[in-house]
């Protein structure tokens, strides 16, 4: 039996072996990428990015919920009083102007997922209340009571007609 002739012997670990090991390990690591990437959303999921929402038939003060990318989106037609009230305040923990959160003041479009842990807030007389941990949002979707840290997300959307928007 050849004596103690192993690659574990540091002095024998020559450059060729080191280089080969490095090349091999690099290849093995690169080979892992397709497996990891295959778990990311596939092409068809990524293109399901836009949803058309019809605004007709929503009465003043009413909220309609639509689905976008599998998430609920609140579309609210705000009354004059609600608009005025929202424009007058800056919100709560996450101060933001109401005008920055809407494209047309009477239409509020926000993602209906609480920014705390993702539950869907329920509509109250005014604003929303999240049943999971009690976060409160105003009629601009801004958080006024925690534990939610941020205002409800405003998704990208655009008006393609007076009564139609495309979200995403």
């Amino acid at each position, binding site marked *: 039996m050849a004596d103690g002739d192993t*690659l574990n012997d540091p002095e024998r670990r020559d450059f*060729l072996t080191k280089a*080969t090991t490095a090349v091999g390990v690099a*290849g093995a690591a690169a080979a892992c990428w397709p497996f990891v990437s295959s778990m990311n959303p596939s092409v068809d999921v990524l*293109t399901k990015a836009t949803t058309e929402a019809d605004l007709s038939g929503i009465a003043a003060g009413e909220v309609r919920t639509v689905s976008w990318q599998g998430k609920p989106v609140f579309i609210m037609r705000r009354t004059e009083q609600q608009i005025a009230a929202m424009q007058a305040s800056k919100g709560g923990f996450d101060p933001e102007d109401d005008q920055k959160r809407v494209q047309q003041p009477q239409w509020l479009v926000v993602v209906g997922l609480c920014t705390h842990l993702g539950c869907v807030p329920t509509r109250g007389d005014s604003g929303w209340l999240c049943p999971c941990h009690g976060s409160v949002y105003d009629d601009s979707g801004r958080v006024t009571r925690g534990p939610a840290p941020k205002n409800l997300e405003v998704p990208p959307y655009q008006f393609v007609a007076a009564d139609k928007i495309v979200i995403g």
Partner: protein
Amino acid sequence: MKAPWKAMGLLLLSVVTIPAWATEIRLEKIRVSADLSALERGAETVVTMCLGCHGLKYMKYRDLGKLGIAQDKVDALRAGQALDAPLLSQMPADVALQSFGIVPPDLSLIAKARAGGASYVYSFLLGFHVNAQGIPDNRVFPGTKMPDILGVSSADDAQRAELQGRALDAASFLAWVADPRAEERRNMGKYVIAYLVVLTVLLYLVKRRVWARLK
């Protein structure tokens, strides 16, 4: 002991190639075009002439854009349908059954589903003729219910040349539809093989050096 290896190699080769020459139909061998303009023309031909009866259900209009076809051309082809809509047949299945007695097969994989691949599609499109009984038929698939969509059986020589071009474009497009990631795959393959050759050479050198320690 070289002779047995040669014999085995020959035997193996013959076994592998025999299925390839088992098809009795003579196909015209074509080289599928990877040229974008050919694929564009092919897409146009297929969408305007084939979608009337056939579907391409695994293709979406958005994918035509990914092929490289300009957005306005894609919009013209989809004629108001959503970008994410699949290219479905315009003829409902029950109507097709009534008219033809068979539902025309979906063409998404046709270039892979026939022995001979794209050459089969090409030869089939050009294989229409009027047989001895005066009935329209196809040389490649006798008894087909499909009509002579390109008008091959009544074409003169000049027209036939043009039809050959259209059939080649259509077959090339359908080959792409059956395997849209082919180019990406081959590209990646070049790098992978190159890397493996380098690594294997290094591994061989390491092996030699290790074994040199013996004796």
